[in-house]
């Protein structure tokens, strides 16, 4: 392992051990935070008992659908906006301030449009992720060398063919940034929506445990979400690296 990797491990492990020590000595009350080892034990128990499986499957399914929709939709919308420079210049400031809006407030509208249940939650996850992907697509398309665009014109490619066969591969590093953000945002959107107003799913289970002073279950599920998101990010990061190396970038 490199020195940097070792230092990183050292700091993360040191932080967890410090929290563990503070909890064990009673400096942090168990009513505020339970020891990390207890969280892991509770989580193992929860997973073995199968009590949380339905909620986990539901949340992961929602995130996956929201992610696929926001990545493909964001790429298509971004490519379309990029084709009209005037529209693009006008829409830029709105895209840039998009994330300041509280989408959760649109939940009642989504219930009417998509019915009670998963549809409305997926819609919020999609709305959260799609704009990160649109912005990344626009950034990537801005940096395509003009010679490639002219090549597409010489081969008489239509707009869709040029977007898929020339622009998509050329802009891929920027698109990866967009996908990474879309992963993070669809998790945030789905879990936050479940947290505030669903009646099932991981977010709901955490807030239910909170309301019932069930710190063991609450921290076990929080640990599960944190580990899951970190592992998904790390896997995608190493996949991106391998791909970039193979393409010699």
């Amino acid at each position, binding site marked *: 392992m490199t020195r*940097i990797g070792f*230092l*990183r491990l050292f*700091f*993360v492990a040191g932080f967890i051990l410090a929290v563990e020590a503070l909890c064990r000595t009673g400096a942090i009350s168990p*009513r*505020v*935070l339970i020891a990390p080892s207890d969280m892991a034990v509770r989580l193992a128990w929860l997973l073995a008992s199968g009590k949380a499986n339905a909620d986990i499957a539901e949340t992961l399914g929602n995130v996956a659908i929201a992610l696929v929709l926001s990545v493909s939709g964001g790429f298509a919308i971004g490519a379309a906006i990029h084709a009209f420079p*005037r*529209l693009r*210049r*006008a*829409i*830029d*400031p*709105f895209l*840039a*301030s998009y*994330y*300041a*809006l*509280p989408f*959760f*407030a*649109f*939940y*009642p*509208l989504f*219930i*009417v*449009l998509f019915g009670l249940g998963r549809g409305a939650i997926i819609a919020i996850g999609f709305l959260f992720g799609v704009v990160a992907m649109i912005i990344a697509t626009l950034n990537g398309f801005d940096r395509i060398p003009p010679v490639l665009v002219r090549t597409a014109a010489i081969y008489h490619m239509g707009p869709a063919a040029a977007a898929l066969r020339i622009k998509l591969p050329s802009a891929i590093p920027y698109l990866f940034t967009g996908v*990474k*953000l879309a*992963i*993070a945002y669809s*998790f*945030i959107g789905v*879990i*936050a929506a479940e*947290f*505030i*107003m669903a009646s099932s799913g991981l*977010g709901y289970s*955490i*807030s239910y*445990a*909170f309301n019932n002073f069930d*710190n063991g279950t*609450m921290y076990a*599920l*929080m640990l599960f*979400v*944190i580990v899951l*998101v*970190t592992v998904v*990010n*790390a896997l995608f*990061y190493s996949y991106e690296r391998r791909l970039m190396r193979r393409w010699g970038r």
Partner: protein
Amino acid sequence: MKRTFDIVLLLTGGLVAWELLHLAVPFALTSPAGTAAKAWSMLTSAQFWPHAAETGKAFVYALLLAILGGLAIGLGLGLNRTGAEVAEPILVSIYSLPKVTLYPLILLIFGLGLPAKIAFGTIHGIIPIAIFAMNAVRNLANVHFKTARVLRLSRRQTLLTVVIPGALPEIVSGLRIGFSLTLLGVLIGEMFASQRGLGFLIMNAIGLHDVPTIMATILLLAVVAVSASAILLWLDHRLHHRVA
């Protein structure tokens, strides 16, 4: 000039789409005119302002803490090559965590009320500001630091006259994202377990199925957020062009 015209055109298109959606599902969505009228009556009513002040107060404190903390972390790590390399993946994975999951922890530490909202807004805003500041300092040309050494500037002088001005454009980009996320954090904090503020107003209206109030509150928030963001965007462009 042409761009202003295009923006007006886009806004008009958005309003028409909104009106059409209202005609399609009238009970789920108030019309643009109805929303504006409701927003105006809220602005002139006495009940609205204490909620707005509560949210404003939480937001200002959270943003100040996020800026100060984010700059301290970002500049500190940026000046230390090893520190930055060790911290970057950690910061990025904290950035992508769904922070709502951490809200119960914050409520248990701070209790219900203003401090919890401030803390929750701060953890949303602090990470992007830190990441942008750190990368800005790392990417500063080495010749700047050499010049500072040649001129025998003290650490404080180097920081104030070389590092911060050099990294300013990127710091403003980070501030723009930090601003949006801090507002989002404060509002989510108010929507869950709170008795005051605009987020509570929205949650309460959702419970009562009071669609005009929901829409009017979102409209007012959107106007504030988009204007603030537009000002920061303008500043961002200006600073980037001045350097380039």
